[in-house]
């Protein structure tokens, strides 16, 4: 087993299912998934319009006959009008940023929650987690799927959890150091921030007992992996997921760390040209479009993730047969990921609308001066809002900041600028300038 960084352990034997048998499993499950989706009027109508009957599905390729689902569809059926089960069957509701002020919800039955837990356990074990370990989770516990998803997975493996949650870096450092955590779970940029703050306090994170890190929630690069590994003296693993599909657990790296194994027994993941929606050649970059095969509460057919990556089905030295996806290299929409939080420019626009009733001209600038993302929202001051009183001007800024925080959940730096000072674009306006390198 060359190319493996750590002892290879497989959580579930299904991960090594020969691909021919995987096809059979996917075909069976695709049929039952279509039946399950037919419980939802939205899909029943779309399937009948396209003439798709579960019984006519003869292979995983038939996924291409199914209707496409977009984030807009989820928004249209807000809050929970895409349920395939009665409401009383739900045991959990999570959410992610919508494109406007309202979040997008995702609901779980007990079965869904168990699946999610298993999928997180899978990639955690692939990336070194053992029952004897202590795991420090510095993800937010809340509507965001990162905290609870990983928590459940670690619990399933049987390791000890320090549910540190997000924020208060100085306290995180104390816990990491004094509780001898073996594994760190957070966003990659927050891992670097912890290391930076520790160093500023005269502490060397590489001296801690940390061995592994599982990082996700935002795109990152091999350079960042190298930096985190050096700073913390650990092996860093990448994982991927999105709340609409299930949360983290859609894919994760094994010991070979050459791409993230997709949980193909539960998802069919297509890689499509975002303009034509035709499949790209294997290994080429395209938009990931995911069909959930086994989800009960909210099955999704061909959900456009807007994430750009490539897929590799060649054999992996770890023995898993499931295809591997590359890092996410970009988006096909204007969504930004700020300190792990999904933010859409349209949300900022809605916040500004709430402040003064009109949508002023604005520009979002993102950079990463140290290890954490910084967002500056430049807003053109309207002459009627100008006052010679400083406190009124400060109150205006504070009001804008508050509305943006209320809608997006992130704090930004609001900068008032002169009217007509921001560039005007004909047609689709460019509202975002992202200075972050390599994300």
């Amino acid at each position, binding site marked *: 087993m060359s190319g493996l960084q750590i002892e290879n352990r497989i959580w579930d034997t299904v991960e090594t299912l020969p691909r021919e048998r995987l096809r059979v499993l996917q075909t069976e499950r695709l049929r039952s998934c279509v039946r399950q989706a037919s419980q939802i009027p939205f899909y029943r109508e779309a399937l009948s319009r396209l003439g798709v009957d579960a019984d006519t599905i003869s292979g995983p390729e038939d996924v291409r006959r199914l209707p496409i689902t977009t984030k807009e569809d989820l928004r249209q059926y807000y809050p929970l009008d895409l349920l395939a089960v009665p409401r009383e069957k739900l045991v959990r509701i999570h959410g992610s940023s919508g494109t406007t002020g309202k979040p997008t919800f995702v609901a779980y039955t007990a079965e869904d929650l168990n699946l999610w837990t298993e999928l997180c356990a899978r990639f955690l074990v692939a990336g070194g987690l053992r029952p004897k370990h202590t795991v420090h989770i510095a993800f937010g516990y809340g509507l965001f799927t990162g905290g609870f998803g990983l928590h459940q997975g670690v619990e399933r493996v049987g390791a000890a959890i320090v549910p540190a949650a997000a924020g208060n870096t100085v306290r995180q450092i104390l816990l990491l150091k004094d509780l001898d955590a073996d594994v760190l779970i957070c966003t990659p940029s927050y891992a670097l921030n912890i290391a930076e703050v520790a160093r500023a306090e005269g502490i060397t994170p590489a001296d801690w007992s940390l061995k592994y890190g599982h990082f996700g929630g935002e795109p990152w690069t091999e350079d960042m992996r190298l930096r985190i590994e050096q700073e913390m003296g650990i092996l860093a693993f990448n994982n991927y997921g999105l709340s609409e599909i299930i949360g983290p657990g859609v894919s994760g790296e094994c010991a070979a760390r050459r791409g993230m194994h997709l949980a193909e027994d539960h998802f069919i993941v297509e890689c499509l040209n975002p303009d034509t929606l035709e499949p790209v050649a294997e290994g080429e970059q395209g938009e990931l479009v995911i069909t959930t095969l086994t989800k009960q509460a909210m099955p999704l057919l061909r959900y456009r993730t807007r994430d750009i990556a490539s897929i590799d089905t060649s054999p992996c030295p770890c023995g898993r047969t499931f295809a591997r996806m590359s890092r996410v290299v970009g988006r096909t929409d204007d969504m930004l990921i700020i300190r792990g939080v999904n933010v859409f420019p349209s949300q900022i626009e809605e916040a500004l609308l709430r402040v003064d009733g009109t949508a002023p001209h604005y520009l979002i600038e993102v950079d990463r001066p140290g290890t954490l993302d910084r967002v500056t929202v430049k807003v053109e001051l309207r002459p009627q809002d100008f006052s010679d009183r400083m406190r009124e001007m400060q109150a205006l800024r504070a009001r804008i900041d508050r509305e943006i925080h209320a809608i997006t959940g992130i704090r930004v730096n609001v900068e008032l600028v*002169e009217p007509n000072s921001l560039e005007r674009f004909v047609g689709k306006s460019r509202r975002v300038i992202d200075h972050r390198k390599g994300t």
Partner: protein
Amino acid sequence: MKIQQLSLFLENKPRALRVPTRILAEAGISILTMSLADTEQFGILRLIVPDAQRAKGILEKAGAVVNVTEVVAVEVPDRAGGLDGVLAVIEKESLNVEYVYSFTARKGDRAVLVFRFDDPDKALRLLAAHGVAVVTELDGFLTPGT
């Protein structure tokens, strides 16, 4: 009498202050006094000029964000305790002062302070009642040739 003050919004960027001063210079408008309130994010430039409405029109035409506010220019005896005496009146009458700055030029043996009151009319009335002198016209501050 109330005096009209120009307030200008300034972005926090190099040469921001120079933009309005150049516009006024080109229009031959003299600045009698000024004050700059700044934050990390932006600034508010307050100016006293001979004809505030005309200056406002010129600045706005050039794209500036300007408003005109009424302020009170108070004459303060230029000696120890001069300012304190005026502030004692303001305190006694519970007049709310937003901000204050001074004229560079003096009026005879007096310094002149610009007060931005919440309610300038009420302030004028009460200051007068206490015998505090206020500037009634700006001509005295114009040096010959302007």
